[in-house]
């Protein structure tokens, strides 16, 4: 728990289960989020990410298990200390932006004076400073997305819970959001976010869990998760010779062809040099990089092996 600085936990799940009728959406999940970390909940669609996050927010109640948030049981009282960006999100369209931000901030128990200072800061930071008297419906989609994030953070939460925060954002806004998340973290806010896009998790998280079919299949820091794989990967860019394929290369267990490049997963004791030699017989190689396997490949293998 060293990442948390003082070693306290921001979130703790223990044996948490949620059923819908006969369907088990979340199956005895347990994990711990150290305070001050950026924690990723990863998994494909329908894995149980949103259900877990809604239980964290006390929007759904677990059938079994214990959830603690910021040292308290996850209930209505602790909500004021959390900033939550749900996957299904939107705002009151008819409200003016200043009015809207004050409304949501005061629902979290903050005073108008406290909020106004932060509203100025965040609107400025998001390039919305001139819009405070406009109605939400007058904003472009990108601006509304940024405003949605301001709503989430305007009350200065200790914990930020973001469900698929990057979904539907254009590349520019994705960077704006990432920088804003990092700014929050620098100020000491713990961030929990879910995603099914593994590259985002790789960029941001220092700890993560992988959920598949409602169960945690992998947990730890990014390095731990990669090390637990015990194998390496090779990233290549090449032009294959006539009639040649990437199949049957020595020491390769899996090939992920991504068009312009391919990720090859190696057997635990494979020799990358032998692979390069074999590859040169088949193709003009412009890039050859030995590295740890991407989360994407690890996840695919974990999910594939289980289901």
């Amino acid at each position: 728990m060293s990442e948390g600085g003082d070693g306290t936990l921001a979130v703790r799940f223990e044996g948490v289960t949620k059923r819908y009728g006969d369907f088990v959406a979340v199956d005895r999940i347990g994990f711990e989020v150290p305070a001050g970390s950026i924690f990723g909940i990863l998994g494909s669609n329908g894995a149980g990410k949103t259900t877990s996050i809604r239980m964290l927010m006390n929007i759904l109640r677990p059938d079994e298990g214990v959830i603690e948030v910021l040292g308290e049981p996850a209930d209505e009282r602790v909500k004021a200390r959390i900033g939550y960006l749900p996957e299904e999100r939107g705002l009151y369209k008819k409200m003016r932006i200043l009015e809207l931000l004050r409304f949501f901030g005061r629902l979290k128990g903050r005073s108008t004076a406290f909020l106004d200072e932060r509203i100025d800061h965040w609107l400025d930071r998001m390039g919305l400073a001139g819009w405070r008297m406009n109605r939400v419906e007058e904003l472009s989609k990108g601006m509304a997305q940024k405003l949605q994030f301001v709503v989430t953070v305007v009350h200065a939460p200790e914990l930020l819970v973001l469900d698929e925060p990057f979904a539907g954002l254009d590349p520019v806004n994705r960077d704006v959001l990432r920088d804003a998340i990092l700014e929050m973290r620098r100020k000491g806010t713990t961030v929990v976010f879910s995603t099914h896009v593994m590259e985002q998790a790789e960029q941001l998280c220092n700890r993560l869990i992988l959920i598949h079919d409602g169960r945690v299949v992998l947990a730890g820091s990014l390095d731990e998760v990669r090390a637990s794989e015990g194998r390496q990967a090779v990233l290549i860019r090449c032009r294959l010779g006539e009639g040649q394929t990437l199949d049957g290369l020595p020491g390769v267990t899996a090939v992920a062809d991504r068009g312009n490049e391919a990720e090859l997963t190696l057997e635990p004791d494979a020799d990358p040099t032998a692979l390069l030699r074999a590859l040169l017989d088949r193709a003009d190689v412009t890039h050859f990089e030995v590295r740890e396997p991407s989360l994407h490949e690890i996840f695919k293998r974990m999910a594939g092996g289980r289901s």
Partner: protein
Amino acid sequence: MTKIWRIIVREYLENVRTKAFLVGVVLTPLWFGMVFVVPLLASGQEAETQRVVLVDETGVLAAEVQADLDERRTQQGRALFEVEIRDAEGAWTAIGDAPSLVDRLRTQAAEGELLAVLLTPPVLEKRAAVEDEHEGGILHAASAGVIQTAQALRDVVNQAVNRRIMVERSIRPEDAELLRKSAIEAVALTRSGKEGGEAQFVAPLVFMLFLFMGIVGISQMLVNSTVEEKGSRVYEVLLSSVSPFQLMAGKVLGICAVGFTLLALWTGGSIAAASMQGMDGIVTGQQIALFVAYYVLGFLLIASLMVAVGSACNTLKEAQNLMAPLSMLLALPLLLSILVLKNPNGTFATLASFFPPFTPFLMMARVAAVPGPPTWQIWASLLLLMLATYLAIRLAARVFRVGILMYGKPPRLSEIWRWMFTDR
């Protein structure tokens, strides 16, 4: 409590600041005014001169009737009737294939070319001596509506005939006038025993209509805003600060306050208007207090059911479909009120007013009628209504917490039913 309060305030302000609200405040009374006042104005305005044909077989009435009708004029002095007297001789006989004069005139009246054909047979002249009271003149006009306009014609002919009878039987005109007048007058009393005038009959209806518009009409507003906000995906953002129950309570109470404002303006306006007409004491303080109680409880009962249904739907159309049975149920009190007001303390009225969804409307109608229901019934109805409202809110809250997070296919009523009775 502060969270519910903040949601109430937001909901209230958002709805009161709309144009729709202002329109509702002003237009509804205007609409009422139009329904009652326009026909009155129109009756004075509709003053085109209309053709009347008189086929007089008596030979003595024609001149008198014509003179009388000629006196009926608009305020501008234009004649209302243009009377044409036709020779009665042979008026009934058809000549060859051609129809008789009377038949031709009837056709013209039926086609609207004439207002009416008046036929005065010879017996009219000697009416006083004739025993058979069915024998008399005939007025032919196209439709019931015209008959009403033609009422004046009938009166004129009647008067002409009566004058002849009086002369014949030596009755003095003063005596005739005396006999014509009703010897007794019907006067409605207020609760305090004062003469209340006609407004007293109207009070129960007005109270009930106000409640109906305030409860059924305004809770429709709640359904609209629930469905619209669900579509804007704002609910889960709110749930990060408040519980589903707080959200629902805030919304329902906020809109309840909107309806209350509207009713207060209308009721205040009505009482002020009645008092300017010199009709004081029609409404008692107790009635006002009960009006408020029935409004608040009735609104909470019906709005919770509506908001529950609304929360489960994604479009207004879905909501309307799901709510159809509820809407039909809620239209019933208006129909039943006719029966209830005929005998406000009869068995039917008593039973119907104890069915909680009807209680606010029918009980209020009974309370505003004179004599009102026994006090124990008022208290019992309030108690029963409170109980029903409490249950409705509890069940609605269960539907609401599931409903607002459900997107996609709208649930069937059976599914909503299941949510109500699963406590999770």
